[in-house]
Each structure stands twice: as structure tokens, then as C-alpha cells.
């Protein structure tokens, strides 16, 4: 099968750059999955998760090492899809294994609290809403990752 060149970058670093078989992302219009030979597309992204599916590799040596899926949380950005390449320009992005669940939860609660107590101007309201959304996405991703880790006995 054809490969899809996936690149996920944030202003701070290149998070991911590999050939994959498919990638699922949540745009502002809803969740989409991109397979190779997708029609060219430019879309705005919402806070959410990115699920990357890798190609099953033929040689036995890599099977032990290679995970077949990667989970990431992002908070908004853009995606540009060209037939054999996907570029995700994320505002912030993290791999599931890098997210600290407790801290994500604490950050979400804090943002929620601030939102409740002070209904300041519209701008900061939007900002905190966005922050909550971002933390929710991170939490979702990290919980999913943990669950999966237990199920498949995959715990590195």
C-alpha cells in the first residue's frame, strides 16, 4: 500500500515525521481520517486527538519494536493534505506518553475554576474555554493511552 508522509510540527519542535498508513484528526467540522491519495485539503483543526496508524512491517525484527499506533493530543492548528503527504501545523502538540495525567487534570480544573469565578471580558472567556478544551483533549488522549497500555501489556 502507498505510504502517507506525515509531519506534525509545532512552533517549538518537530513532533513527528514518519511514513504512516493513515491518520485520524479532529477538524472544526468533525473527525476525519486521511488515507493515501486523499484529495487536497486544507482545514482548521480543533483541540483533540491524533491517531496515527503505522504500516505493518514485513521483517520480523521490527515487529517487536514497532507500535502499530501512535496517540497525540493537539490544541488547534491547521492541516494541509496533499496526495501523499500530510502536514499538521499544530499550535501545541504532545505525544500521549509525554502527558502527565495528573497535571493535565489539575490544569483543566484550574481553567474551569477561573472561568466560573471571573466572568471577565469576552476575550479571556474564549481563551479559557480554549484552554479547557485543550486540557480535555490531553486528558482523553492520555487515558486512552493508559487503558490500551494495560490491555495489550504494553507498558514502557
Amino acid at each position, binding site marked *: 500500500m502507498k505510504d502517507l508522509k506525515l509531519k506534525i510540527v509545532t512552533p517549538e519542535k518537530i513532533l513527528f515525521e514518519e511514513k504512516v498508513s493513515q491518520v485520524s484528526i479532529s477538524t*472544526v467540522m468533525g473527525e476525519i481520517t486521511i488515507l493515501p491519495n486523499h484529495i487536497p485539503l*486544507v482545514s482548521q483543526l480543533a483541540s483533540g486527538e491524533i491517531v496515527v496508524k503505522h504500516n505493518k512491517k514485513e521483517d520480523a525484527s521490527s515487529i517487536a519494536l514497532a507500535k502499530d499506533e501512535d496517540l497525540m493530543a493537539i490544541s488547534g492548528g491547521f492541516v494541509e493534505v496533499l496526495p501523499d503527504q500530510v502536514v499538521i501545523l499544530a499550535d501545541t502538540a504532545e505525544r500521549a506518553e509525554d502527558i502527565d495525567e495528573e497535571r493535565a487534570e489539575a490544569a483543566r480544573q484550574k481553567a474551569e475554576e477561573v472561568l466560573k469565578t471571573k466572568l471577565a471580558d469576552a476575550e479571556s472567556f474564549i481563551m479559557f474555554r480554549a484552554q479547557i478544551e485543550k486540557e480535555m483533549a490531553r486528558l482523553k488522549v492520555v487515558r486512552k493511552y493508559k487503558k490500551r497500555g494495560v490491555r495489550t501489556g504494553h507498558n514502557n
Partner: protein
Amino acid sequence: MPQASRDIQRRIKSVKNTKKITKAMELVSAAKMRKAVSKVLASRSYSDLVWDTVLHLVKKVDTDKHLFFKEPKEVKKVAVILVSTNRGLCGSFNATLVNKVIESIKIHHPGVITTDVMTCGTKGRDEVRRRKINLVADFHKEDITANSEDIRPISHMITKDFITGKYDKIFVAYTDFMSSLKQVPHVKQLLPIVPEIDERLGHINHDKDKVENISVDSFAEFIFEPGMEKVLDAFLPRLVEVQIYQAVLESEASEHSARMFAMRNATDAAGEMIDELTLAYNQARQASITSEIAEIAAGSAALE
């Protein structure tokens, strides 16, 4: 000890102290430079990709449609964002940047009636004020810009000013980080967006990994979700923000390497000065000993 050699000794001591300080500052700048350079390099790939996306988009979009692409008929009012430093002691860093700004505005846009400057960094602000240039805004600059959110107030303000037609063109002036030895002041047009391959923003030096230039023309369709207008409305301000962010990072890396070299030069100069003064001191000491011996010899000769 006679007065002359005591004076020389005092000077040697003070130069030695200065040398210690400049040496320490050099080391501090070197550490800061490493940090800033790694940040610049990391964010370059992002801004490259954003720019690539824009280049793809402009082929599919009627560029006259969006305000951000529209080239003004005559350029009367321009704004310049001047990214300078908060601290001095970095050689001619800020002065050359301000010179470059004045010069490029004069040469490229002779019809400009007013030039407003927004500064980021206190040294640039002082320089602008000294030269009596219109200063409309001064943004606080962090020593190390943590993330692109710090830039948002600036980009917000200039996009608003551009949309309302307050300015015909907006530039950003920063110092391009080519290598730790070479930094070049550069003035770059932010708005309206010029959809051309950007040569600068460090592009000369870092080899842009050519992700096989796909010709977008071959695609009949290009989907925009949730719609072309909306995507552009969200994407283009982001592009502006990214460009300012990149400019600030480039300036930071340049600042620290400029300071490191300024301090290294100062340390070297101090070393040379110490050598010269030590020589002068030794000569003075020798001269006084010789004259003392001569006096004693003369005294004993007089007694005989």
C-alpha cells in the same frame, strides 16, 4: 615606590577586574546563545511549512479576494516592528538595525509620508526616540521568548491596524541569524503577504529540506474546510504571528551571539592592555631602581 609605578599598578588591577567581568559575560552569553539557537532551529521548520502551505494556497486562491494579499495602490503610511534587545553591550547590534530600517524605508518607498515604529526591546526604543522617529507602541520583550503566545499582542495589533486601513504596509525589522559569526539586519514585509519564496528568515543558511516541490496546479480540486474564507481568515493571521515569532527568535539568537563576540573582543583587549601596562610598570620599576643605585653610588663616592 614612586607615584608613577603605583598609578600603573592601580590601573592594571582595574583592567584585570574588568577582564574578569567581560569573561563572565561572555560565558553567560554563550550559554544563552546555545539555548536561543536551538530554539530558532526548531521553529524554522514550522515557519517553513507554514510558508509552504501559503505558497500552495495562493495558487488555488484568487489572491485579490483576501484583504491580506491585496497590494495597496500607493504606499503612504507604513509601520515597522523593530525587534531589538533589552540590554546593551552587544556591539553595534541595535544601531545597525535602526540604520537599516531608516535606509530601507527611504530607498524602497520614497512616497511614504509617515512611518510609525513599534518597538520590541528597550534599546531599540531608546534609539528610535533619540532619532525622533514616530514611536506608536512599545511592547515588552522577554529575555527568552517562551512561546508564540508572547507575540500575540503584537500580531493582534498590527493585523487590526492593517485591516482598518491605518497602514498600507507593515514590516518587521530584525536581525537574521545566519551563524554565530554572522548576523544580518533585515527588514521584511509582513503585510500584505507577498506570496513568493522567502529567501530570508535564515533561509540562506539552513538547508531547506526540499520536500519535492509538488506542483499544486495539477490538482483540479482543493477542499477548504469549513470554507475558503474561513480557513484564510484563521490561517493568515496565524502566518503573521508565526513570522513575527520567528523574527523575534532570530533576533534573540543574534543578540546573544553578538554579545558573546563583543565580550570576547573586550576580554582580548583587556588582556593586551594588561600586557602593555605590565611592561610599562616593569620599566618604571627598573628605572627607579637604577636611579636609586646611582644615587647610592654617588653618595658613597662623595664620602670618600
